């Protein structure tokens, strides 16, 4: 089923928020890091994996979810977190390592947990999959509403956890949907060099579940495939696997020189940037004027700017608090 106008505007809006969030984080991340790039410096130290270009994967799936549903995400989690409804102020403060962050600065950008909307992520490839299967089992055992979504990258499809989790979810017929964001690169290694088959959705057949391939980073097509898979999960039909062709417009992490990319690849990807494409689609199909668009962009920027302001103005927790919250 295609998304209606309201759903499409929600999707577009969250793509805008996510993109502007990443662009803003990118600028702040570079503060204090140059002239010789030093990852430990600046207001946002550490690794930073930006999701520019991958927004359709987040909004096309999360448009079907409520706060009750469970999402496990990856080391590149911001777009999905935003679409899942993670508290943007607290998430931003967490990325800055501040006391007002989701975990008071203990987790950082790769370890975002917001229990209120059942969102979590892991910095270890494919390791959110087992927990998603377990959360789905929990809902089944408790006869409670909710599906679990496990996001992974295409590189994760070669991990043991991928194959084990698909098998277990299928054997137990659990309400879980596995989403592969195929951005073609596992850091510097191309999918073609790491994966024995061209399309990972074909691997679904080995585990007795439907597999979907969505091409061209198309938010509408993602919405349609995810809608079918999520409906199957909600109605007791078991798990599905969706591989989405998406674009990583940024490096693997900030500071990545991307010398491994073939010449011209980045330009070709930017030419297919999903955000202007979605804007054109809205203008062509709905009564979506320039002023409507400008208003939505402005609203998205204000939301992000407010979150950045909140994070910047927050204090660091006293360092001794590092000793707390190991146990409850």
């Amino acid at each position, binding site marked *: 089923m295609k998304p209606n106008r309201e759903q499409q505007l929600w999707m577009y809006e969250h793509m805008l928020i996510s993109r502007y969030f990443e662009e803003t984080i990118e600028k702040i991340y570079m503060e204090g890091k140059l002239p010789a790039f030093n990852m430990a410096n600046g207001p946002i130290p550490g690794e930073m994996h930006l999701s520019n270009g991958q927004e359709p994967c987040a909004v096309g799936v999360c448009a079907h979810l409520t706060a009750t549903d469970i999402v496990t995400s990856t080391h590149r989690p911001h777009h999905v977190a935003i679409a899942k409804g993670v508290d943007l102020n607290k998430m931003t403060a967490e990325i800055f390592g501040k006391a007002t962050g*989701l*975990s008071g600065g203990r987790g950082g950008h790769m*370890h975002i*947990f917001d229990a209120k909307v059942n969102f979590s992520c892991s910095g270890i490839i494919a390791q959110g999959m087992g927990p998603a299967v377990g959360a789905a089992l929990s809902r089944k055992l*408790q006869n409670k509403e909710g599906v679990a979504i496990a996001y992974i990258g295409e590189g994760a499809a070669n991990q043991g956890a991928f194959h084990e*989790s698909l*098998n277990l979810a299928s054997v137990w017929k659990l309400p879980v949907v596995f989403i592969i964001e195929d951005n073609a690169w596992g850091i510097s290694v191309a999918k073609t060099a790491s994966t024995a088959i061209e399309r990972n959705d074909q691997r679904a057949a080995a585990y007795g579940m439907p597999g979907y391939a969505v091409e061209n980073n198309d938010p509408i097509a993602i919405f349609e495939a995810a809608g079918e898979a999520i409906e199957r999960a909600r109605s007791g039909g078991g798990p599905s696997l969706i591989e989405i062709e998406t674009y990583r417009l940024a490096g693997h992490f900030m500071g990545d020189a991307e010398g491994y990319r073939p010449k011209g690849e980045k330009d070709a990807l930017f030419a297919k940037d999903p955000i202007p494409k979605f804007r054109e689609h809205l203008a062509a199909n709905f009564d979506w004027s320039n002023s409507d668009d400008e208003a939505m962009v402005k609203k998205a920027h204000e939301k992000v700017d407010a979150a950045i302001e909140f994070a910047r103005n927050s204090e660091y927790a006293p360092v001794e608090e590092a000793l707390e919250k*190991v146990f409850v």
Partner: protein
Amino acid sequence: MSVATKERKLTIARAMAEAIAQEMRIDERVFVMGEDIGPLGGVFGNTRGLFDEFGAERVRDTPISETAFMGAAVGAASDGMRPIVELMFVDFFGVCFDAIYNSMAKNTYFSGGEVKVPVVLMTSTGGGYSDAGQHSQCLHATFAHLPGMKVVAPSNAYDAKGLMTAAIRDDNPVIFMFHKALQGMGWLGTERDAIVHVPEESYEIPIGKAAVVKEGTDVTIVGLTSGVHHGLKAARTLAERGVSAEVIDIRSLVPLDRETIINSVKKTGRLIVVDEDYHSYGVTGEIITSVVEQGVALKAAPKRVAYPDIPIPFARPMEQWALPNAEKIITAFELMEKN
């Protein structure tokens, strides 16, 4: 409650199953999963009877797929369930350790305490029956070293039941290590002293509290699981020589009850630590350091009786030679006396 005066001796296996069953009766969130824990009742007997009483939904056999089901335990616990998951042999941790130490142990911290991960991971340890180097390890220190998990290891059925009950009720991940030779399974060799009276009613042994299992004044012998029984045997022999040994069962590795150990050594002035885990970087070193760094006055340098730093050999004479035992503890004491 009826007056329970009658002695009712149980094996550790039976005591574990009884604790799990009692918690499953009062808490719908508790369920069990692992390999062969269903109709078979667990290869070490610790889930016997559960499948018949609670059925396949709550007592679920898994595929041989530890990465998936250990991860699933984390996800189910984070979502409000209280999974008890069995890792059949602790030696198998290598195939699923990411779920354990990167997720189970850290998600509470990463969420600032918002996410609870009340998993009980029960796993068998120990050798002595020639199962060689991939099925006989203890790996106490491997788990105890990493922050975010409580770790318990009973030496007898009474503690096993109480620690299991406490572990299930705890909001944190708890690693429950049970020694195969103490399980009361004939085919693994049975330590009779592990089979003790166990009350029928439910009770908790507090996690993080050691037990002084025998009082004494001349030397403190600290151990866990099999080591406690070696210590008690050594203490009986030493008593015949007029030496009064105090034996402490730590019961919990994390948190470790350092206070009970330190107070004992303050009294005796001598310390021997027994551990079936590897010698170096382990429980023995941790306990001795904990005492020494408190400046406790010692009459002799502390000793450790632990597994040599070798993979566990198959040949029966080799394995038996390498294992800790009562004689090695007595030898350690004699060496302390010489110096």
